[in-house]
Every structure is written in C-alpha cells, then in structure tokens.
C-alpha cells in the first residue's frame, strides 16, 4: 500500500529560487525510506510538503492515496532538525502535547497518561519525565522529541535530519534505537539526512538528491536484515552501498560545477 505519493512536485519560492525540480517519490507502507543530498538541495522542503506544511508550486503530494485506508491508520508525525520542545514544560507535558491538542479518539485522560508513560518507556525517558528540556542533554532532548512524535501512534513518521546536531557517538546510538523502533512498531518512515552512512545504516531504500534545484538522481534498495547493528557498519555490504551512493552524489556535484561554469 502506498503511504506517500509525490508526483512531479516542483517548488519555486516567491523570491524566484527554484528548490525542487519535478520530484517523484513513492514510499510504500512499512518502508524506511531516506532522502540523502547535500545541504540546501531542498530535501527539507520536500519533507515539509509531505507533512502539508508547504504546498508544491506544481505537481501533487498525496498521503495514503488509497481511500480504503482508515483514518486511524492515516496518522502522521514529524520530527524536526532540532528538538523543538516547549522550554516551559517538563518532558511528560511535552510528550503529551499532541494528545492535549485534541485528537478526538485519544482525549480520554487515563488512556492518554498510560500512552504517554508507555511512549516514555519506549525511548528510555521514564526517569526524566519531570525534567525540563534545558536539564537534558541534546540526545535526550531528541528522544523526548521522538517520543512526542510517537505518542499518537502514527503510522507515518517524517524525520528531518533529527540527529544532525548531535555528536557522532550519540548519533550512532540513536540510529540503532530508531532502527529497532521501526522494526518493532511497524512504522513507515521518511527520513532526511546529508549523511550517506546514516542513510545506508537505517534505510530499506535511499533516494539520492542533486544540489539545487533538487532532483531525484537515483534510488537504491538496501536489502539487509533489520534491526541493524554495529556489525553492519563494518560489513562489506555497508561499505559497498556507501561507495555507490558517494559516487552518485559526486557525479551530481560535478555536473553542478560544470553547469555553473562559463
């Protein structure tokens, strides 16, 4: 079943900057799809389009185009580049926010508390539910942010370079946890990153984007077993996939430089 159907979407900003050039991306349910590309290639814009936060200039973006998909399976959540937590609320109230903002089918208070508790346990923040965001490390803030996204039990998770601002060690751990989570919770994820390694480690499928205006220049399936472990990071298959994606990105960058020449 198709979860995201982006067909020939283009984005031209009011100032004339062309961010996306006829992008077509189809993500099926249960996929971990990743868009990898250099900074400023429009991948965040593409993700915001999928979330309905910005509209395409031309083309079309549809979530669950199949009308037989029920409303409860159409739930969507977004994880931003930074944790974007409410500084004035503790972890529990932050995670609870989507429920408080009223999803008609989950406003029952007891049920909501139980769900918040379960989600906090899922990301390992149970002991920190009374802590305020500034009292947490960057990695823990990001976990709280992910818990907030998961609390509505979304079927589709959109993630915009969520671990980009973290140190390498924390990032590797959160990547591992995310891979676990995806496998265990039967999620569909569309992930955006500029790290080829992260893309290969996490995904079932990787879309490669060219520099601005962003185009999809390749699509690679990563057929390796899940959940992925650190052993995968040092395997030959991992290195091979990374090399392939690097070559693809490098040639796109070269075209760009030649194209921009005299």
């Amino acid at each position: 079943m198709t979860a995201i159907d982006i067909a020939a979407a283009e984005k031209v900003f009011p100032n004339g900057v062309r961010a996306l050039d006829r992008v077509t991306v189809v993500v099926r349910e249960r996929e971990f799809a990743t868009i990898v590309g250099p900074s400023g290639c429009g991948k965040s814009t593409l993700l915001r389009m999928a979330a309905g936060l910005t509209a395409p200039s031309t083309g079309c973006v549809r979530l669950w185009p199949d009308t037989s998909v029920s409303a409860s399976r159409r739930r969507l959540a977004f994880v931003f580049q930074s944790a974007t937590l409410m500084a004035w609320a503790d972890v529990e109230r932050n995670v609870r926010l989507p429920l408080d903002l009223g999803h008609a089918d989950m406003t029952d208070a007891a049920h909501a508390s139980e769900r918040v508790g379960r989600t906090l346990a899922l990301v390992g923040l149970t002991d920190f539910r009374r802590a305020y965001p500034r009292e947490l490390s960057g990695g823990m803030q990001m976990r709280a942010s992910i818990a907030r996204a998961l609390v509505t039990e979304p079927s589709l998770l959109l993630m915009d370079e969520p671990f980009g601002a973290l140190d390498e060690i924390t990032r590797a751990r959160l990547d591992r946890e995310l891979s676990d989570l995806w496998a265990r919770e039967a999620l569909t994820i569309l992930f955006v990153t500029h790290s080829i390694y992260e893309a290969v480690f996490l995904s079932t499928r990787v879309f490669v984007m060219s520099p601005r205006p962003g185009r999809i220049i390749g699509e690679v399936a990563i057929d390796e077993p899940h959940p992925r472990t650190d052993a995968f990071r040092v395997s030959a298959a991992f290195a091979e996939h990374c090399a392939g994606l690097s070559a693809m990105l490098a040639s796109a960058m070269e075209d760009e430089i030649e194209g921009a020449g005299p």
Partner: protein
Amino acid sequence: MTGYRLRSIALRYGAPFALGVALLGAWQAVVTAYDVPSYLVPSPLAVLDTLRRDWTLLWHSLMFTLAVTLLALVLAIVIGLASAFLFVQSRVIEASLFPYAVLLQVTPIVAIAPLIIIWVRDTTVALVICATIVALFPIVSNTTLGLRSVDPGLSDLFRMYRAGRWQTLVRLRVPSALPYFFAGLRVSAGLALIGAVVAEFVAGTGGTASGLAYQILLSGLQLNIPRLFAALFLIAVTGIVLSLLAALAARLALRRWHESELREGH
C-alpha cells in the same frame, strides 16, 4: 551550598551594600569636617533624624505615592496586555495602532500632565492616568514582541496537530511571551513611580492627599533641605523595592526553564 555560591551571593548583595556604607561615611565626614550648613547639604545623620521626626507626615506621603504608583502599574499591566493581545491578532491592527502607542511613549509626560490635570476633576485620578501612560509602553512593546517570538518549529508543530487559535495562544504564545513580559514589567515598575512623582510635581497639589513629590516641592520652598533629602530617600527606596519585586515575580515564574533566571549548576 557551595563556596562558589556563597561568594556569588556576597558579591551580589555585599559589594553594593559596602560601597553604599563607604559613600555615606565619606559624605558624613566631609559635611562634618567642613561644617557645611544643613540647608545646603545635610549630613546623612541629619536626614535620618528628620526621617524619624517627620515620620507621620512622610509616611502618609509615601503611602499616597505608593498607591498612585501601584494603581498605575496594575492599570498599565491590564491595558498593556490587552493591547498586546489585540496587536497580535492581525498585522493591520498592529500597523494602525502601534504608532500611537509610540506617540504616547515619546510625548514627555510633563507636557501632557497639565492637560490631564485640567480635564480630570479628581487630582488623584489624574495622577494615576499620567503614571499609567508613562508605564504602559514597555509592557505593550515587550509583550507584543514576545507573543510574536514563537519558535517556528513549535508553530509548525501546532499547525500540524491542527491546534485552534485559542490553544495556540494559551499553550504556545503566552508561555513564549512570559520572559519578554517580565522584562517589560521590571522597566514599567520603575516608570510608574517616575510617572507618579513627575505628575505630582506638575500638579503641585495641596490638601491631605499629597505624595512625596509635594513634600519635596514644599521642603524646597521652605529651605527644609533635610526633609527634602528624606523624601528623596523614600522615593529611591520605593523604586528599588518595586524593581526587586518585579525581579522576584520573574524569578518565581521562570526559574525552572528560562535562561535569564538560571543559576550556575542549577
């Protein structure tokens, strides 16, 4: 409590206090040594003595000034918050009204106080109006800025979860605005006092309901300089207390989450 913490408290409170005592001591010494007449510069001890002798008179004046100040501050908060909420409802409203808020701010209160005192029969009410006008602007401008200074990511999040206008206001905009509001409050608390005193100077009111400015005016005319200093001292103390109270309110509201109220090592 760590040694570092103790040292920082000693620095915050001890240092200004020590400096104050030293300056007063020097003042006393100079006045005594050169035999300066008290109608020119009274010694701190003479001022203290006047404060004790004229306490009933000064206490009533202090209460009057304080009442005008606090009433004006409350009015400024109420009107200021209401205006700020109105401004952020639409850019058209803000664009139309904000210049007039600025106009109110830049017009010196001494220039409009005579008019207000003529128009408003009750002098006390006139003083409250003047002080309110002076205290209003920091609250309006800061709160408006605060209500607009919402994290764009959180704003997107609220949109994605289809939060209503009211939910967005209460759960996102108001908490985002709190630090800005308190910064404005601290300025306005001082301005309300200044407004109350300046307006009373202009009014030059007599009778029973008269504040510290009137005591200063009268003492000046009677060359009762120690009493003038005593009234001045009370105004200064009132200003300091108001500013500290505003800071305390900010600390109580923001201490757990906002950078401005953080202590090292929380």
